[in-house]
């Protein structure tokens, strides 16, 4: 709370400054990053592909709603931010927008009437997108998306966040870099393609980078040390993608690419938010692009495959579980009664189907919220072209009490080679009490 108040205070001050600036300085809209040839036409399918890369559909569509018609509530501590209708409907959508208007929304977070978008829209990252992709995406929305008349609820945040001009000041801090993408000289095309997708349309940093004092992403590219070193969204941890023991270090690039395109690989499966990203976005990327992303992540995490402990070693945890003594403690007992069938006494699961729990970033995450949520409610992998099976884990909310889940989760976080702090029954209750859809 304290932190929030502090942040609020800073924002209020900035807001006042911005208000003054607003009076004297007209809104600047960024132009194209590069000038395209006059006859430039995006390739067939390019616009839809960019949409998938940017995962526009996920936020701008409601549960069971028409594609891109908006109206999904993005929860924030200041209130709900309602996503807008981005179909080419002229009344309620973006049908009247010019390419310059469209670019300004992606680069500057500004609508044609000068209103600032809340940075739930990741224009901090989209600002990296190339002019070719912007044009292709614009073309897609104008010509391939069905117009839908849908007036979405207006976002009304609590004071002072309802004063959108405050965002102008925020933008000076967060999105004031040169637009477009600059490939790194000396790196190959694959690396630069991966970097472009990660930093730009893919907006990976929106979740995987920490946020600074002003709630802006702490670095929007790999020149910043904090970039992709792990973030938190609504109390769920998004893992570090470049530091010690990160998946980028431990997995081969092929394994990382498989994870991106199928939500599963030899080590792990995607849960929660990441599962949705695979379902809605990454599974539509070409194999080459997912390999490019994997290569980029491997490179910025040190470029080596982390030498892992020899797998033959039998942990004390495995020994205890195998013995199955009648008087074993509650945590491991619950593991045998609920989890061992798939994840086994080794905690290693099985490739592409039962994720490893030993060394799993969800299990050992700083915030246990994701782990608790999976134990309570289960998980589901999306059907993808290469791995069509909708693998599901069932939830245990009916079978296990808060105390039992705290003992189980604590065991998981301390078992095998894991070392993460214990989980309390209150932690479990907090997740159990969250409203469901």
């Amino acid at each position, binding site marked *: 709370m304290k932190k929030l108040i502090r942040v609020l205070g800073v924002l209020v001050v900035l807001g006042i400054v911005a208000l003054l600036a607003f009076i004297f300085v007209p809104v600047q809209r960024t132009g194209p990053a590069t000038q395209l040839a006059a006859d430039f036409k995006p390739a067939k399918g390019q616009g839809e592909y960019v949409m998938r890369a940017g995962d526009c559909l996920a936020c701008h*569509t409601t549960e*069971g709603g028409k594609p891109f018609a908006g109206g999904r509530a993005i929860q924030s501590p200041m209130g709900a931010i309602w996503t807008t209708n981005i179909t080419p409907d002229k009344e309620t959508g973006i049908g009247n927008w010019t390419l310059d208007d469209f670019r300004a929304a992606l680069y500057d977070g500004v609508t044609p009437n000068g209103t600032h978008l809340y940075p739930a829209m990741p224009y901090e990252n989209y600002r990296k997108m190339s002019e070719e992709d912007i044009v292709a995406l614009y073309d897609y929305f104008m010509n391939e998306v069905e117009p839908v008349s849908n007036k979405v609820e207006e976002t009304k945040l609590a004071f002072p966040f309802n004063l959108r001009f405050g965002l102008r000041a925020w933008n000076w801090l967060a999105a004031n870099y040169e637009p477009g993408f600059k490939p790194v000289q000396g790196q190959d095309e694959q690396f630069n393609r991966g970097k472009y997708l990660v930093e730009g349309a893919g907006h990976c940093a929106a979740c995987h980078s920490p946020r600074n004092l002003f709630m802006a992403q702490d670095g929007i590219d790999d020149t910043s040390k904090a970039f992709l070193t792990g973030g938190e969204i609504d109390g769920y941890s998004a893992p570090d993608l470049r530091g010690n023991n990160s998946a980028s270090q431990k997995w081969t690039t092929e394994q990382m690419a498989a994870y991106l395109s199928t939500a599963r690989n030899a080590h792990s499966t995607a849960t929660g938010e990441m599962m949705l990203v695979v379902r809605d976005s990454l599974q539509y990327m070409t194999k080459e692009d997912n390999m490019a992303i994997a290569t980029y992540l491997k490179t910025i995490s040190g470029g080596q495959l982390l030498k892992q402990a020899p797998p033959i070693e039998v942990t004390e945890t495995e020994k205890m579980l195998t013995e*199955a003594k009648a008087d074993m*403690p509650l945590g491991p007992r619950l593991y045998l009664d609920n989890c061992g069938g798939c994840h*086994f006494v080794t905690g290693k699961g099985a490739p592409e189907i039962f994720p490893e729990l030993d060394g799993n970033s969800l299990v050992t995450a700083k915030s246990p919220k994701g782990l608790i949520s999976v134990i309570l*409610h289960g998980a589901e992998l999306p059907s993808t072209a290469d791995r069509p099976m909708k693998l599901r884990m069932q939830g245990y909310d009916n079978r296990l009490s808060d105390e039992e889940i705290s003992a189980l989760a604590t065991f998981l976080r301390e078992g095998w080679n894991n070392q993460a702090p214990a989980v309390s029954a209150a932690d479990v209750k907090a997740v159990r009490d969250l*409203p469901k859809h």
Partner: protein
Amino acid sequence: MRDVPGLPSRRTFLKASAASAAIAGIAAVPAKAEQKPEPVALTEYKPDCLTPSEWAFVMAAVARLIPSDGEGPGAIEARVPVFIDKQLAGDYGRAADWYMQGPHDAAASPLRGWQTPLNPLQIYQQAIPFFDAWCKTTHGKIFAELDAETQDKALTSLQKDEMKIAPELRDFFTILLANTKEGYFADPMYGGNHGMEAWKYIGFPGARGSYKEWVLKHNKPYPLGPVSISGERA
């Protein structure tokens, strides 16, 4: 677009308030479940479908089919009568899944399966008074009032069909015995196998269903007690 089924929405972007910091220990927690409140005593139990006299018969009969003395729980400690009452009140008792259209040939060879027009509940309802009447004629009292030794004799006569029960009721002893064993060994959520005592007695681990690491532990007894479908541990 859908979020993960059953999961709270996570499409959020700004940092929420600081996570709670409570910490729990692990090592000292015993593996026993929180004690469930004891269910209502059998003498106080209100049957779903059995009448008081039927209930009295079932209580008395199962107490002889799986008696309480000796090692292991008896049918009474396992609350088998509750199981039978609930089964007879449900789909099984009504033969809901079975083909019950006529014509019926109840006197057909037993090898030809269930051919009575009656469902299991009706068989209990009609066979109990018949058997009680036979007990009264033969042994002077209805079954529930006989002493244990005479009850055993009477049940043996029933099993051997010495009283020539009607063909429609022919399977009574068979289903009574089968239902008793079902109630003894089924998951506790059906009302019997109270406390999983019957599973503990024979060494069945219940609904654990996870033994990969034990396949090659040949000829070595498995030590861990059972777990039920609802998660009770013993």
